[in-house]
């Protein structure tokens, strides 16, 4: 996983609530067996017309947002299907950070596993950031994970919450399977105990 430390970038405004993972990447594009290449299908139903041409009204088809690395949206971002293809598609397009008032649980987890930072900020702040983002190319937003702040183009800072363990893994780009493997002896003990107390679980 790529580490996430500080990012200063163009932010794309997507002032919608309940952006579901079917919207982020429709199921018909989930047939690939690799993690790469989903970016070209990101928001496919909104981004492209039926004939495959670009929809000029969709934010990611406009300058300067084609180069956006931050996405700002409203409540319950990433609801619906558990597909990790959603953060893969965001990442493959170039989005490293999504800012919203809140996120659906599974999507939130999936982002942390892939170096995409979900940032929770109150609705009013998201509305301000969307206005900033709508100013266009000169407006850059900074996300500093170490200090847990988002910095508006005018210099105003907003603190955001993040779990300690997740922050550590993200700042260092660590694979959490390796972390868990350090507890292998405890897992062995657990399994031995369970085998004795709940033998029906291992009869299969």
């Amino acid at each position, binding site marked *: 996983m790529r580490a996430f430390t500080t990012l200063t970038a163009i932010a794309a405004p997507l002032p919608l609530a309940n952006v579901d993972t079917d919207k982020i990447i429709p199921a018909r594009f989930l*047939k690939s*067996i*690799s993690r790469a290449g989903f970016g070209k299908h990101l928001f496919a139903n909104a981004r492209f017309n039926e004939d495959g041409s670009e929809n000029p009204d969709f934010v990611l088809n406009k300058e300067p947002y084609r180069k956006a690395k931050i996405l700002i949206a409203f409540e319950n971002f990433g609801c619906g299907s558990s597909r990790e293809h959603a953060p893969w598609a965001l990442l493959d397009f170039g989005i490293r950070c999504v800012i919203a008032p809140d996120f659906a*649980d599974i999507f939130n987890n*999936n982002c942390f596993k892939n170096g995409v930072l979900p940032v929770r900020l109150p609705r009013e702040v998201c509305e301000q950031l969307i206005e900033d983002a709508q100013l266009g190319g000169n407006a850059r937003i900074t996300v500093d994970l170490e200090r847990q702040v988002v910095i508006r183009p005018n210099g105003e800072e907003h603190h955001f919450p993040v779990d300690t*363990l997740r922050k550590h893994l993200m700042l260092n780009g660590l694979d959490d399977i390796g972390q*868990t493997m350090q*507890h292998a002896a405890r897992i062995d003990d657990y399994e031995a105990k369970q085998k004795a107390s709940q033998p029906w679980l291992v009869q*299969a």
Partner: protein
Amino acid sequence: MPKTLFDKIWDAHVVETLPDGTALLYIDLHLTHEVTTPQAFDGLRAAGRGIRRPEATLGVIDHNIATDASRYTGIVDPESALQVATLERNAVEFGMPLIPLLDERQGIVHVIGPELGRSLPGMTIVCGDSHTSTHGAMGALAFGIGTSEVEHVLATQTLLQRPAKNMRVQVDGNLAFGCSGKDIVLAVIGKIGTAGGTGHVIEYAGDAIRALDMAGRMTVCNMTIEGGARAGMVAPDQTTFDYIARTPGAPKGANWESALAWWRTLPSDEGAIFDKIVTLAANEIAPQVTWGTSPEDVLPITGIVPNPEDAPNETRRAQLQRMVEYMGLQPGQRLQDLPVDVVFIGSCTNSRIEDIRAAAAIAKGRHVADGVRAMVVPGSGLVKLQAEREGLDSILREAGFEWREPGCSMCLGMNPDKLKPGQRSASTSNRNFEGRQGPGGRTHLLSPAMAAAAALAGHLADVRDYQPKEALS
């Protein structure tokens, strides 16, 4: 301290608590399918890792496959074929048990787990699929995970998890005629909203939940994810135990007695604390149908399309306006007047034998309206065989329904069963998002009995006007 059902299962599965409060949680059963696993197996391969407990892992093919006879001659779509072949190859390479595509036990992952007796009370169950919440109906803690977490469970049989909050949804009283588990869960989502359960695990309680059969409870737990909660649960009771006793995976002999003794300790203790409690009166629930493009946009079938101008704020007004346009509706229009092109009875929400019986009871002796395509897709090979033994397939075929092979089918638009742009469906599935059943498709979610009624009427209809004409057998 009194504990909830969730607390008890959680506490019994914590291997270790890390300094920041994250738990290393042991996973008893890991279900897998072809869509969310290829990249996880790639990760294992790259790191030289294997599956820690293959016998606690079970694979099945469900999302990609056609539900017509073409499955017997090979998958037509090359990308689907590759994804299925990849799961088959990974199962062999990593020693993972896999139900073969043409096996009679093949079916939707959330139908086969309980049906084979693999999903049991008190277990932790995961799958790379949000509707894993279904298995909570067994009195298990079951939730969906992403592909990185699939890899983590394959390698370690554990997950790093933050504890969830407890929420109780209490449904008291008796369900009225024409209503089912589907109507309960749609009404719940209508009440709490699609983010109402975020950060919580929901335990369903009350007489109306106790009165549901296991299929009804699975429908309720299945759509819990649509209310934002990761897991839904129902405390195990005699209904649960009787169901398990009939499955091939039921613990045998002395194991049955000791399992039963533990399962009986699982229900939430008197006085256990819930962070949030929501109460519904079952007798006030009418047959439900969604009108918009989020499961929370649901109304009784007697309702009318809302007017965006009546919205409480501009954000909601814009949202409603977008929905009305996408769905091709007029504010004030009666839901019962909306003509349907396609009726889909199936999916992990509603494809069990009880669901098919409910549809057949309404369809018997009647006929699907002209111009409507109505399809019934059983949830598994075993459901299909049972339905055929009961003659339900003949009743449905005679009424003009297609009787198909098991799979996810038209729930999600990634196999050949899709809506065409602009088509309107009455669907027993779980999501009415834009494009979910195919680009441009318009989905109305409802129960199997309501779907059957819509097929007969040719438009959304009130199942209470379609009492069964004759008994099933």
